[in-house]
């Protein structure tokens, strides 16, 4: 690892000022991804600004929202009573990610900022437009078993690796960020971005912005019927091949409302808006679930080694809906 300067800050203002002062500086919280990337030479910040002393660890209900501080640990959020009771989908998704040791280190904000696990991104001897813009994409014609089937571009077919973010996308969360211009709230769907011609940008955070909290609307009906299903190569501690986050609001046998999001299939957590629209007001039945999955697959495109995802994805959508609605 190349050497770097290190400073620990004790206020948002000093964190943001320190970042603005130095173009080669980066925030560090849990560091589970950043230190890994620095060891491999993929990231090489010249200064780390340690934000762990900032007061962003609370989990509290404020009016109709649960507000989670950006520095709350993944394990603390997953086991928090309020979260388990009110936002069980988030708890399930967090516990499906990484390992107990990593969840004890990783923060909410850091989880949102983690980079793709595309092997071409990690291997500095390979071309990668995300790591080195203009160098090409090794994955498109390479070994792309883990890669995207939705929203990819000719520049990049990498996927976002987070489980937590899939749940937050399904739950219509919003991200609270601070900068020296004040505070703004970003709808979760607008936080991460598709690769387009600029895959080096994972998200729409501006330079000089600091994530301070995540706010999730409380919906007791959704809390009753929520499920995170993760399909992976081994039973635990592996990134998703595909995953589905689903919440249902049921009126008897009828779907009053539904949210569906997927992981492992796109550069960002992938909301199935058209499938949701189709299911709204319909009876919970296997046929309807299959139709909604077919709608989700409309614009899917595979790249060879990930052809299996064209079958695994709709199957996982149907199975998740069956399980959460009690049909199986």
């Amino acid at each position: 690892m190349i050497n770097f300067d290190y400073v620990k800050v004790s206020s948002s203002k000093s964190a943001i000022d320190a970042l603005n002062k130095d173009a080669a500086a980066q925030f560090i919280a849990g560091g589970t991804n950043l230190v890994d990337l620095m060891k491999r030479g993929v990231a090489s910040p010249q200064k780390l600004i340690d934000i762990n002393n900032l007061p962003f660890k609370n989990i509290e209900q404020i009016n109709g929202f649960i507000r989670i501080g950006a520095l709350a640990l993944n394990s603390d959020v997953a086991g928090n009573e309020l979260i388990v009771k009110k936002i069980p989908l988030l708890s399930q998704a967090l516990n499906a990610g990484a390992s107990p040791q990593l969840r004890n280190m990783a923060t909410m904000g850091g989880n949102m900022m983690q980079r793709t696990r595309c092997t071409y991104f990690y291997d500095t001897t390979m071309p990668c437009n995300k790591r080195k813009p203009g160098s090409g994409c090794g994955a498109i014609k390479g070994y792309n078993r883990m890669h995207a089937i939705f929203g990819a571009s000719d520049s990049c077919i990498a996927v976002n690796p987070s489980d937590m973010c899939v749940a937050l996308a399904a739950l219509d969360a919003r991200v609270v960020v601070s900068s020296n211009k004040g505070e703004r709230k970003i709808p979760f769907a607008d936080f991460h971005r598709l690769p387009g011609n600029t895959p080096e940008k994972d998200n729409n955070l501006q330079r000089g912005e600091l994530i301070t909290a995540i706010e999730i609307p409380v919906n007791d009906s959704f809390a009753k019927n929520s499920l995170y299903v993760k399909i992976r190569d081994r039973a635990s501690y592996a990134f998703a091949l595909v995953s589905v986050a689903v919440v249902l609001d049921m009126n008897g046998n009828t779907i009053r409302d539904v949210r569906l999001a997927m992981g492992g299939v796109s550069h960002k957590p992938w909301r199935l808006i058209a499938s949701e629209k189709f299911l709204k007001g319909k009876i919970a039945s296997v046929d309807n679930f299959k139709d909604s999955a077919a709608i989700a697959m409309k614009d899917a495109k595979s790249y060879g080694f990930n052809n299996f995802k064209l079958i695994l994805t709709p199957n996982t959508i149907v199975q998740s809906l069956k399980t959460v609605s009690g049909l199986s």
Partner: protein
Amino acid sequence: MKDKGDLHQARRKFLKQSSALTALALASPVLIKAAENNLDEKAAEYFEKQSVQIEVNGIQHDLSVEPRVTLLDLLREQLNLTGSKKGCDYGQCGACTVHVNGRRVLSCISLAIMQKGKKITTIEGLANGDTLHPMQQAFIKHDGFQCGYCTPGQIMSAVACVREGHVNSEDEIREYMSGNICRCGAYPNIVDAIKEVNEKGGKI
């Protein structure tokens, strides 16, 4: 961009060329003293190293490290606590698992400089004198290892697993031990060891 070697050389050259006056304006008393004594090499190190006070297995240490030094390297190379193992060194295998303020983490992707004021427990800190920790005894009894390389990490994780209460079934134990890889495949015996420690109860 200059590579690391170039940067080091540039820094040394800068230090050698700096007049005492420049040093006075820029540098700490330690540096000025170093420059006066022509200890340029040492002065260059002061630029990069920062102090870190940590407690390891009940003993306070006042150390100085470069920011890039991981907690694992600090434990192994500065404190000679070589029980924590370097397996993958990328946070994937769990061999480097230690407890920081009572919680299990991966020391290979933790920066030492970020552990200021924290309490670290390593495998060397588990036993009570010559009396092994119950989890260590259970691993021996159930043959919870073969080559032994992953064992310190397995045991640190296993102790945390019991303390966290994630031991209500074999499946739950396996799920909550999934961050520790054993390439000899001692998993069934590791699960048996953890089950026994949990069933015996008592404070561990």
